[in-house]
Every structure is written in structure tokens, then in C-alpha cells.
């Protein structure tokens, strides 16, 4: 507000147009014909500036786009390339973590040259048995789980089924 006449100054008055004026300004203008007329005048002035400054259609030559569009293509490719290695690293990190976990697990297992056959057998024991057989290592008679007189692939399957059953029961 002006100190002299209590009318809002021009910027404050014009701010009413965008709802940025103080509430007291709004109240004042509602009751002040002089300010309402001035507000209308400022509105017309603003419209005249807007019309005079409006961008002209067709100012921009089409070739102006080329450099920017080429820049966009290059930048987008850079961004995608940056994201790809990030995913690659994530996958590599996950694989490394899995290998580490498997290694730790293997070391944490009780020392043994073969699978455990008791109630705590799990699917990894079946894998170990399978690996030992494929490697041609001598198979103890205790591995003949199906009691058919041979230690072979069928015993591996028997141990695998047992491991799954134990796992389900444990869950």
C-alpha cells in the first residue's frame, strides 16, 4: 500500500491478476472504483505487451533442429550406455556374492568326501554324490540308497527326492 493514499502500488495491484496480491489489496480494490479502473487499464496494457511480444510462427528454420537432435541422440546413447554397465556390475556383484556364499557354505559343511545321507541331507548332497560318481570316485556301499546292489544315478535321484521331502517337511 502507498503511504499517501492507501491505494496499492501498481505491482501489487497487477499481482491481483495472478492471485499473488495480499488479501487486504483484494479487499481494497473491491471497494475502490479508482483501483478497479486502474486494474483494467493494467490488464489492457499487459495484453498489448503480450500481443506485441508474441513469437512469430515460422521464425525457426528447420535446419536449426539438426544439431540439437544429433546432440540428443548422442546424449541418450551415453546415458543408456552408463546404465548398462551399472546393471552389468550389479549382476556381476550378485554372481560373486552367490559364489562366495557357496564357497563359505562348502567350507562350513562338516568335512566329508561325499554326501550326507542322514535326515539332514539336502539337494547339495545329491549334487555331491552325482559329481563323485561322474568323476569315477569309489562309491561306498552306504550310497546304495535304493538297495539294488549298485551305486548309480538312481541313488542320486533317491537322495534328491529325500532332500526335497526333508526340505518341505522342514518348511
Amino acid at each position, binding site marked *: 500500500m502507498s503511504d499517501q493514499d492507501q491505494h496499492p*502500488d*501498481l*505491482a501489487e495491484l497487477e*499481482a491481483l491478476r495472478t492471485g499473488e496480491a495480499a488479501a487486504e489489496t483484494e479487499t481494497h480494490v473491491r471497494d475502490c472504483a479508482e483501483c478497479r479502473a486502474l486494474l483494467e487499464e493494467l490488464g489492457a496494457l499487459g495484453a498489448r505487451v503480450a500481443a506485441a511480444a508474441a513469437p512469430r510462427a515460422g521464425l525457426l528454420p528447420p535446419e536449426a*533442429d539438426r544439431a*540439437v537432435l544429433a546432440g*540428443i541422440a548422442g*546424449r541418450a*546413447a551415453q546415458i543408456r550406455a*552408463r546404465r548398462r554397465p551399472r546393471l552389468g556390475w550389479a549382476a556381476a556383484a550378485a554372481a560373486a556374492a552367490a559364489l562366495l556364499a557357496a564357497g563359505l557354505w562348502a567350507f562350513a559343511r562338516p568335512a566329508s568326501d561325499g554326501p550326507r545321507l542322514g535326515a539332514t541331507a539336502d539337494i547339495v548332497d545329491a549334487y555331491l554324490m552325482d559329481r563323485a560318481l561322474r568323476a569315477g570316485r569309489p562309491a561306498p556301499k552306504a550310497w546304495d540308497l535304493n538297495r539294488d546292489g549298485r551305486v548309480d544315478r538312481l541313488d542320486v535321484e533317491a537322495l534328491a527326492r529325500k532332500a526335497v521331502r526333508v526340505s518341505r517337511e522342514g518348511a
Partner: protein
Amino acid sequence: MPRISDPARPGTPGDGELLAAANRGEPAAMEALYFRYRDWVHARAWRLTGNREDALDVLQEVFLYFFRKFPGLELNCELKTFLYPVVRSLALDRRRRRRETPLGAAAAELAAPAGREEAAERAELSALLGPLPEEQREVVLLRFADGFSLQEIAKALAVPLGTVKSRLHHALGTLRGSLRR
């Protein structure tokens, strides 16, 4: 904040959605942002440089700068409010290099080759705003031609809100006086 959806164009993504896609490196989103703001940036660049060639250079520099901000660009204001200081800075740099003051002289507004009608319109703007100091002219143009709020002007020009109001008040007073004569 940039709008997520675009109320003026139902079915088209808003700036927020396009910015998110641009942060993922989607070229279509970057192109959409470019075409959405290209003419606006160019018009401001021309207004600030007063030179057609410089305006085209500024246009390219603005968007190359803008797209270098990706990925990781997060805006807490409208995109125009973000872009304007960039346009302004690059345009003023161009002007300094040319040692011209196009906003200060009506003739410079007409310096670029233009059609008769276009020249007449630019002459009208120059005549209208000619009496204003440059800093007041800029506030008037941002306010009425660009539709910025007072807060947005303050942010775009990096000046206090009170300074914007003061410049606008003095500019409007001068314009009223000159239009009455």
C-alpha cells in the same frame, strides 16, 4: 514442480513424465521436451540477443546444456523457470561478445533480417517498451509475454521478490505515462 500430466493436452505426457524418461536416456522424451520448448527458447533468445543467428546458436547451446544435465536432473520449478536463466546467460554472453545492446535500442530489435509484417510487429514492441530501462523491460516481458508469476520472475532472475515488484511498479508507471502522451 513440473507437471506430471499435461492438462492442456490430454493424453500427452507432462514435463515431469518426460523428464523422468529423459533421465533414463529415452531419446523420444528428450526430443519431446525439445520440441515443446524450442520455440519458446528461441523467441527469448532472439529477444535477448536481437540477432537471428545468435538466437539460433543460443537455442542449440541451451538445449545441449540442458541435456547434459541428464541423468539426474530433478526440478523443483516449472521448466521455463529453469530454462530462462540459461537462455539469458548464454544470450547475454553472445551480446557481450558482439558488444551490442539490443534491448536498449529499438533499432537493434530490427537488426535481424525479417519480413515487413514481422518488422512492424517488432517495431511496435520496441516502441512500446523503449522508454524502459532494460531490467524493467525484462520483468515486464517475463510477466506479460511469458506469463511468469512474480515468484517465478524472482527465481529466474535470481533477485528478491521485492526487487521484482519494485521494477514492475516503476515499469507500469512509465508505460502508463508514455501511452497517455
